[in-house]
């Protein structure tokens, strides 16, 4: 009975422009958070071949760091400073993780299967560790901040009201996607990274310090995750479970979009974000199942995802 009403609601919404817009905006905003985390995950997997289970925790760190920053320093520009600085803090932590823990594992286990296994173990260890460290340092409660004053005014759009902040988030997502594409395809560093993915030995023999490259790429992934956390803080609040919550959905996005592809991550994120928004109308109980079913279908039929490279 609930399901019939749900399908009715869905059709009603699809035929009403204001409802459509409302759900699209919320879906796309959510998609951007997913994209930021998923793109980091995807890049780290694409280049270093590591499934980073701690990636959600890096997102969480971004949110907590931003919270501390905004409560310690209060001025009109606080949020913007946090926005620009905190991701680098998280990137630094990511570099630390890679240099002291993940790189030794890569060097210690020449067999790929073992390497993958122990990378997973190590990143999961970080997930457990960070979730508790956050509780110890900040306490187990959850924290929220208000929308930054410069971005809280409301915009009226097609009969619905939205804070500017939501559009800001979407704009940031778009800028990052373009920047990443540019970096990967038009800069020297990007070219070297792509070459290293194709053939590590040749690149190394050409004098490139591949391990240092890897650390930098991991830091970039962490930077993206941290940025996601900073952006999410005013809307979603910081709590110790936030890392785990978003991790599974990010996996789905990465698989659907294609491991290693940035545009794939964006497309996958948008798909999952919209699925969620409209799914809540149609069959509220099952929207989560659909996401995992989608992941399974993609893995069965086309494991490289929509835009992934052929592995």
């Amino acid at each position: 009975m609930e399901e019939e009403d749900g399908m009715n609601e869905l059709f009603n919404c699809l035929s009403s422009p204001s409802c459509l817009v409302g759900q699209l905006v919320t879906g796309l905003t959510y998609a951007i958070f997913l994209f930021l985390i998923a793109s980091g995950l995807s890049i780290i997997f694409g280049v270093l071949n590591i499934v980073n289970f701690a990636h959600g925790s890096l997102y969480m760190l971004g949110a907590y760091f931003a919270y501390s920053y905004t409560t310690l320093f209060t001025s009109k520009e606080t949020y913007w400073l946090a926005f620009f600085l905190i991701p680098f803090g998280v990137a630094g932590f990511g570099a630390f993780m890679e240099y002291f823990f993940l790189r030794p594992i890569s060097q210690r286990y020449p067999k790929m299967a073992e390497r993958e296994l122990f990378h997973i173990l190590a990143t999961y260890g970080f997930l457990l560790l960070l979730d508790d460290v956050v509780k110890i340092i900040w306490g187990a409660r959850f924290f929220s901040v208000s929308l930054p004053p410069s971005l809280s005014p409301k915009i009226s759009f097609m009969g619905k009201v939205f804070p500017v902040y939501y559009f800001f988030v979407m704009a940031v997502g778009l800028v990052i996607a373009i920047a990443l594409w540019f970096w990967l395809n038009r800069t020297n560093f990007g070219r070297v990274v792509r070459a290293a993915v194709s053939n590590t030995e040749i690149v190394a023999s050409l004098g490139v310090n591949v391990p240092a490259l890897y650390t930098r790429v991991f830091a970039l992934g962490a930077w993206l995750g941290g940025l996601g956390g900073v952006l999410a803080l005013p809307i979603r609040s910081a709590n110790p479970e936030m890392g785990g919550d978003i991790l599974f959905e990010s996996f789905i996005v990465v698989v659907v979009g294609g491991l290693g592809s940035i545009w794939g991550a964006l497309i996958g994120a948008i798909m999952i974000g919209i699925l969620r928004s409209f799914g809540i109308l149609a069959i509220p109980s099952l929207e989560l199942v659909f996401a995992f079913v989608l992941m399974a279908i993609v893995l069965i039929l086309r494991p490289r995802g929509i835009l992934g490279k052929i592995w």
Partner: protein
Amino acid sequence: MKCRGKLLIVALFISIVISLLLPLKDAFSQVEKPPIVLGGLFLLSGRAAVVGLANYHGAILAVEEINAKGGVLGRKFELLARDTKARPDQAVKEATMYIMRDKVDFLYGTAASHEGLAVAEVAEKNKKILISPEVTTDKFTVDNFNRYIFRTDHMNRQEEKSAAVYISRFPYKKWYIIGPDYEYGRDAEKAFKEELKRVKPDAVIVGEGWPKLNEPDYTPHIQKILEVKPEAVYAIFWGGDTIAFIKQAVGFGLFEKTPFFSISGVGDIRVHEALGKDMPVGVHGGVKYWFDYPYTPKNKEFVETYRKRFGEYPSLFVMSSYMGIYFLAKAIEKAGTVETEKVIDALEGLTIDTPMGLVTMRKEDHQVIAPHIWGKTMKDPKYDFLVLGDLQVLPGEKITPSVEEVLNWRKAAKK
């Protein structure tokens, strides 16, 4: 690098082991008579911490006050506390360990309705008393009732009856209900729907939203409400969920358009403090305790003592927990022993004096009979958060289902 790395890890490990063992030194301090050990189960992390910490602090205050007066039967209370993370299996694990490993005398706590039901089974299996200051699902004292569990909180039926009585004064007929998708949310909604129909037979539910408990992002649900345009919204959120929902909804202008009624969410002083200037004026909240009422010296003293001890005003979740410990203490005194069966007999029908007034533990369903309060948010120059004003107090007897009704429901549930 390899040697230094190993040394680092070993040092880290040793320091952690030491810091974990440090608390052990307290175990060797002097005790005269053995303490009465209470195994406390609280929601201590995440959004639920708003409730769990309040339960915990209320219990601590009561325990400290009682111990300062010499304890119960010459023995001090010792309150153990563990985080159940709002997961029933975690709660059951901790409860079982309390009974097996720590040999507690009584189980105290559980707040989330699903974990309460789970631990109730553990209590019955092991013949230990469980006093819950927070579980509100009707099932606790109706369908799943067993002799060993007691509740010093309202049941959903009482709260929803009080809501219906309050709402009957307003002309709103088309309602949207939204709440967390778990035991408590569903049970409360069922009770609300029935009670609403009783006072307003022409009321209609035009939509429902069921986000998961501790949902980070309510925006699709908020959009849905704005789309459906109900005459009023009834929200079953509590604690951190209320804070998150209101924060997100304010940005979309929900409260300017739609009257909002919140059970146990608005009216929680922690919610008011967290929202601060973001809290909308004129939203309705129903609570079992608001610190500024009743205007009795006993209540004033309680608020002051609590403020001095914890640096904040006591919320509704503090009072039920404070009360719970006192019920236990008085019952043990009356029984003259900590023996489970005798304490159960002592608890049944017990009336104690609390800062809220006189509260009775009903014999047939181990349920307290206590008043419920509804009000509206408004500014008050004395405080820098919004207060609950225009208070309507509904006495316990008016909102509590009769013993006959409860027994009938139990019979129906067994079929």
